[in-house]
């Protein structure tokens, strides 16, 4: 396209920014509301990691499935799950994605191919293999993606899934979101061979590392990997090196961080700042267009919170409903 230096058109760029901004503001609002005691259970925030979910999901349709993690809000939003339903779910209200009975770590929307956030670390990988097997048998060129943290990549389920996907040549993509910490344990202490690409090689599949704070790096690599999987090229592991702006969970004192680490992350490794600087400096998109999205996103988040707070809690009679899915 003449004059546009990016591999996305203007509308796609604006949509990518809107998605990342929505994730960011959704999470920052939860940070505040959880601290105030408004939200039951636990929340694990995705702020700082937006480029990964957004850069990958930009290549997916509703027929492609993803299996998320305990830190799943960003994956949900990027996959197109309604943020009002998500907010109701996190607030534990009826009308939520799972009618308020799942909470933050169990948001799912099968109509969007979002098979669920998951409170069990490493549990998404076998689910994605199952979805990928179904996709392979259906022969529609669909793929399944599992997200896993650097800590959970040590789980047996994850390693078994790498093997299964390789031997069955499944269209599975294993995304290791490497934010450097397994809860509070630095990967330097908790991982014997600290290259996730090495693990892929151990199972005979390609592995790629990208700067997970650079939307365009994730977008370009994910595009090639997903295309390969759609065309029958089989599984790939994609490691996104990234940073987590908040603690493992809300309330985490983060005493394991180095001095100034959070400030360094916010100042120099913010994927939204990088994206804004790149697209606004190109002449393709103006600062005013980005600001208009910022304002609209804030309204959307406020609306979601208002709707969530106004919704009723599930009743005792709701306890035994929605246990099994109907086909």
């Amino acid at each position, binding site marked *: 396209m003449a004059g546009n230096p990016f591999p996305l058109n203007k509308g796609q760029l604006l949509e990518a920014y809107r998605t990342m901004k929505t994730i960011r503001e959704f999470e920052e609002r939860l940070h505040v509301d959880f601290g105030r005691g408004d939200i039951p259970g636990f929340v694990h925030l995705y702020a700082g990691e937006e480029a990964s979910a957004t850069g990958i999901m930009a290549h997916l349709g509703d027929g492609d499935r993803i299996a998320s993690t305990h830190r799943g809000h960003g994956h949900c939003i990027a996959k197109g799950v309604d943020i009002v339903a998500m907010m109701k779910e996190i607030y534990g209200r009826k009308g939520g994605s799972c009618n308020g009975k799942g909470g933050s770590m169990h948001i799912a929307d099968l109509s969007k191919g979002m098979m669920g956030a998951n409170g069990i670390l490493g549990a998404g990988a076998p689910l994605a293999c199952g979805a990928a097997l179904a996709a392979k048998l259906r022969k529609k060129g669909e793929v399944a993606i599992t997200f896993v943290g650097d800590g959970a990549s040590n789980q047996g389920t994850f390693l078994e899934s790498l093997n299964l996907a390789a031997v069955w040549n499944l269209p599975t993509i294993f995304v290791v979101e490497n934010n450097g910490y397994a809860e509070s344990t630095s990967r330097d202490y908790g991982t014997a*061979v600290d*290259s996730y*690409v090495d693990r*892929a090689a151990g199972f005979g599949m390609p592995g*790629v*590392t990208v700067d997970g704070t650079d939307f365009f790096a994730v977008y370009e690599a994910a595009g090639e990997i997903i295309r390969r999987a759609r065309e029958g090229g089989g599984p790939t592991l994609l490691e996104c090196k990234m940073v987590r702006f908040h603690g493992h969970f809300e309330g985490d004192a983060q005493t394991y961080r180095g001095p100034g680490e959070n400030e360094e992350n916010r100042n120099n490794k913010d994927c939204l700042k990088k994206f804004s600087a790149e697209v606004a400096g*190109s002449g393709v998109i103006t600062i005013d267009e980005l600001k208009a999205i910022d304002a609209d996103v804030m309204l959307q988040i406020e609306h979601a919170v208002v709707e969530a707070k106004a919704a009723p809690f599930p009743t005792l009679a709701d306890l035994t409903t929605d246990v099994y899915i109907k086909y």
Partner: protein
Amino acid sequence: MSTLAPSVGIIANPVSARDIRRVIANASNLQTADRVNIVLRLLSTLSELGVGKVFMMPDKSGMRPLLSRQLNRESQLGHGFPEVEYLDFPVTSTVEDTFRATRLMREAGVKAMIVLGGDGTHRAVARECGDIPIAGLSTGTNNAFPEMREPTLTAMAVALYATGKLSRAEALSGNKVIEISINHGERKDIAIVDAVISHERVIGARALWRPESLNALYLTFADPEVIGLSAIGGLLQPTSRESPDGLMIELASDPAKAQFNLRAPIAPGMMRDIPIANWAPLKAGVDYPVALDAGVVALDGEREMTFKPGEHVNVSLVSQAFFTVDVTRCLQLGAVNGLFRF
């Protein structure tokens, strides 16, 4: 400078050979454990030939803890190694670590630096190494600059030079670089093999692999026995590392205007047809302004510098810009002069 226990630096890039070319070109991936095994072979060889101390670049990608565990095991077995000192600085896990480690090793007075990486890693060291020579080992993707060789042999050659058994004149070779300058020095960088002008406009996944995105190539040397973008020059007009000239190649954006298509390995196992418009020697000390209005400059295989309309990009070839240990010559001199007889 003379010391009783000469020191050597080892800069081992823990994350070379990890990029998208694993997917688009089935490029190899040297695992962390193998990188550590290479370092262990270097250390034992250097120790046997009189190098007393080795400075290491720190990393947060798994090499340091693995090497520490292995060194503990080796010491329990009574095997000799030089003193190993990790440079003390906060690791950023970016190329800045390589720049900083190179500078600190120079300040520490190392006699030579052994580099594990591909062309990109060697470029980063070359930018900062000054007159300290490099000995390169291929652990990257294209590896046009570092030679494929058993690390033990490289360490043997380095030890002969570091311990003073061979002089600079005997052991070292000079190398060319390409200097890239944007807006008359506002932004500057170098390439040790290839500076490629591309129509791409973002850094993205860094590698270049789409032939239609290529605009022009500027090469320090062009070897038909290498892969990567410089292979285009190698198969078009071989130009040696020792030649005073480099090579410049203009590609045809309109295939109808190409003199011919050259089928070249622009990545491992990836043969692509490249539409050649023109080529000519690249003369040292001459300024070559880039014609493309806006795009990206890829340095030694990776997109590094973007430029916009109105920005001026200049390319120039510089001779004798940095030095490498000539392993073949060192080992031959070592044999002829009896330097391995103890």
